C-alpha cells in the first residue's frame, strides 16, 4: 500500500523541530522510519506532516560526560553495532545492536526512535531497562531527564508529551566489573521477539537488575531478583528458578498466560547465563 499524502519538513535545529511539533497536532517525528515507514505504508498512521529530525547535528552525535555517555536519538543501530561510538557498557550495546532486525533495517533505524515507540518486542527497551538507562527529553520547557522504567507506561505507551521529543539516551557509567547478559526468542530471526531477557550484574556494588520484555506485554523490571535463585550465588545461572520467575512476573502485573510467562522466565535465565560467560 501507499501512505496517505503528507507534508514533509526537515528542521535544522531542535528548537525548530519542537516548534513544528507544537504547532501541528497531527505531525509525526520521522527518524530512521523503520517502524513509522511500514505503519505509514499500511496506513495505520496517517499524519499530515512528517518532521524529519535526521539532519539535526546534535541528534546524531555522542557526548561523553562524567556520569556516562549520551547517545543521540538519531544514532543508528548499525553505528552502534559497528563500534563507531566505541564500546559502551563493555560491548553490551554493540551485541544487542547486532541482533536487531536485519542489517538493512539497522542502517537506518535509530535508538531514539525505537525507545520512543516503546514496543515491548523491540530490543533497546529491554536491553536499556536492565542497564538502568535514562532519556534526555526536550520540550518547550527545556530538557528533562527520565529514567527509562518511568518513561514506559505500557506496551507502546510512554510519558512523552505531544510536543516533546527524545534527544538522547544516557548510558550510566559503570565499573568494568559489571556484567550484562541478553537473550531473546524470536519465531523467525530478526522478527519481533516473543520474549526478551536482559540482566545487569555488578557483584562489587551488589547491584542486580533484570528486565523481561518481548511479545505484547509491558516490560517488567526487577531491581533485586536474588530471591528468584535457589542458590545464594546469582552467578549460578542454573539456579534461577523458572517457575518462580514466571510467578514473579505475574505478581508484578504481567497479565500473560502461563506459556508467555514461562517463555520470559526462560529468557531471563539464559540472559544470566550470557552475563556469567562474559
Amino acid at each position, binding site marked *: 500500500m501507499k501512505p496517505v499524502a503528507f507534508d514533509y519538513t526537515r528542521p535544522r535545529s531542535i528548537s525548530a523541530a519542537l516548534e513544528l511539533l507544537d504547532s501541528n497536532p*497531527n505531525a509525526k517525528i520521522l527518524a530512521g522510519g*523503520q517502524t513509522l515507514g511500514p505503519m505509514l505504508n499500511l496506513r495505520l498512521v496517517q499524519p499530515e506532516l512528517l518532521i524529519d529530525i535526521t539532519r539535526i547535528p546534535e541528534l546524531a552525535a555522542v557526548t561523553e560526560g562524567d556520569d556516562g555517555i549520551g547517545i543521540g536519538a538519531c544514532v543508528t543501530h548499525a553505528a552502534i553495532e559497528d563500534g563507531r561510538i566505541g564500546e559502551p557498557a563493555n560491548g553490551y550495546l554493540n551485541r544487542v545492536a547486532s541482533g536487531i532486525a536485519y542489517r538493512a533495517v539497522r542502517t537506518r533505524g535509530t535508538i531514539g526512535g525505537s525507545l520512543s515507540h516503546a514496543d515491548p518486542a523491540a530490543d533497546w527497551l529491554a536491553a536499556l531497562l536492565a542497564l538502568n538507562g535514562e532519556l534526555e527529553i526536550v520540550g518547550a520547557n527545556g530538557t528533562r531527564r527520565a529514567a527509562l522504567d518511568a518513561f514506559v507506561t505500557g506496551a507502546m505507551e510512554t510519558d512523552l508529551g505531544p510536543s516533546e521529543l527524545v534527544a538522547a539516551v544516557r548510558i550510566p557509567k559503570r565499573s568494568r566489573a559489571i556484567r550484562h547478559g541478553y537473550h531473546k526468542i524470536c519465531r523467525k530471526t530478526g522478527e519481533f521477539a516473543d520474549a526478551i531477557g536482559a540482566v545487569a550484574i555488578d557483584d562489587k556494588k551488589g547491584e542486580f537488575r533484570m528486565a523481561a520484555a518481548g511479545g505484547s506485554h509491558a516490560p517488567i523490571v526487577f531491581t533485586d531478583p536474588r530471591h528468584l535463585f535457589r542458590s545464594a550465588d546469582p552467578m549460578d545461572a542454573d539456579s534461577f528458578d523458572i517457575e518462580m520467575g514466571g510467578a514473579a512476573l505475574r505478581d508484578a502485573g504481567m497479565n500473560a498466560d502461563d506459556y508467555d510467562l514461562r517463555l520470559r522466565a526462560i529468557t531471563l535465565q539464559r540472559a544470566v547465563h550470557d552475563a556469567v560467560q562474559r
Partner: protein
Amino acid sequence: MNRITLTVNGKEITREVTPRTNLADFLREELFLTGTHVGCEHGVCGACTVVVDGEISRSCITYAVTCDGAEIRTIEDFDDDPLMEKLRHAFSAEHALQCGYCTPGMLVAARDLIRRGAAGDEKVIRVGMSGNLCRCTGYMGIVKAIATVAGDYELVEDQAAVDRPLGPAPGPFAHDSLKEGKPEAARPTDRAKHTPHEAAPTLAAHPAGNVQTGEMVQEGKFTKLTQMITVNHPRDAVWALMGDIEKVAGCMPGVSLDRPPENNHVEGRMLVKLGPINADLKGEADVTRDEDKWRGTIDGKGRDARSASLARGRVEYELSEEDAGESTLVTVSIAYSLAGPLAQFSRGGIVRDLVTRLAGAFAQNLEARLEGREVAGEAQALDAGSLVFSVLWERIRSLFARLAGRKQN
C-alpha cells in the same frame, strides 16, 4: 512537491517528488531502474534492498525526499563490480534463483554481508541473510553461493565505512535542497483540531484494591475481559447509578457523547491512541437493563473513517449482594472485536494490553464513582503522562498495531 538532488548510480539527478513517494517507486517509476523490486512494501521481504551512502537500506520504507543529497546504488550499478560479478556467477552455478524476484535484493544484501566480513559459516550466512525472503529456492543454493564467494574474499579496509555519519544517511552534513528554500508549511486542518467534548479521565497508575481482574478469554469473534468490583453500597443504589449512561460513559477513558442519551440510545466517539496510531471511532450504542436479574448491557459499534476499520464492543454488568446487603459485587465484562485493516495485523497482544489498561481504568473510575469520589483525572485536559483516549461508549475498539513483520525504528 519537494525538489531533491541526489546521485543515482553515479549520475546526479534533480527531480520534484511528493513526500510520500518511496525510494523504490522513485527509482522504478521516475528513473526506470526496474531492477529494484517491490515485494511486501513494508520492510519485510528485502526485495527492494539498495545501497544508500554505502550501506544497504530498504527502499520501500525509505522515502525519496529523505534521500536528498544521498548517493544511491541499485543493482544496475554493479555490472562491473568484481565482488558482484563473482556472486552472479555463484548464484548461477548453485541454482540460487528461480523466478528471480528476490534476486536483486539478495545480491545487494549478500555483497554487503561479504564486504563487511560478516559472512561466516552457514548459520552465520543464514542469519545475515534472514532479512531477504525467497519463495523458490529453499535458500540452499543462495547460502551455498554466498559461502563460496565469501570463502575466497579478502577483506579490504574501508575507511569510508568507519567515517560514516552516526545517523541515517545522508545525515546532517549532506547537500540539502530544502535548506535553500523555505520548508513547505504544514497545513493544519479541521480534523487535527478536533478536541473531545469532554475531558477524558486518565488511567490510574495502580490497580485499586477493590477491583479484581480476570483472564482475557476468546468468545467467538470477541475478546472478553471480566472484572469484579466490590463497593460498599447497597445494590439498589448501585443499580440506580449504573442506569445513568452519561456517568458510566464518563468512566471510560476518552469517551465523549454527542448529546444526552435518548431512548437508551447514545451516539458519540472514542479516540484511541496507541503509539503513533490514532483511531477515531465514531459510532453508537444501545443500552438494555433487566431489573429482575440486576443485569445490564451496552452494545456499541463504531468506525474509524481514516482506516475504514470497524469495531464492536459489548459491556455487560451484573450486580449481586454481599455482606447481607451492605455491599455490592459488580461483575463487569468488556468484549471487543475488530474488522477491516486494523484487525489484519498480527500484534493482537498489543491491543489486548491496551484493552486491559482501558478496562482497568474503567473499573477503577466506576468504583470511584460508585463510592462517590471524583473520577481520576476527569477535570484534567489530555496531558502528557496519561494514556490519552477519548472514547465513545464502550466499544473498545482498539487499535491494533503493528505491521506484520518489521522491526523497530
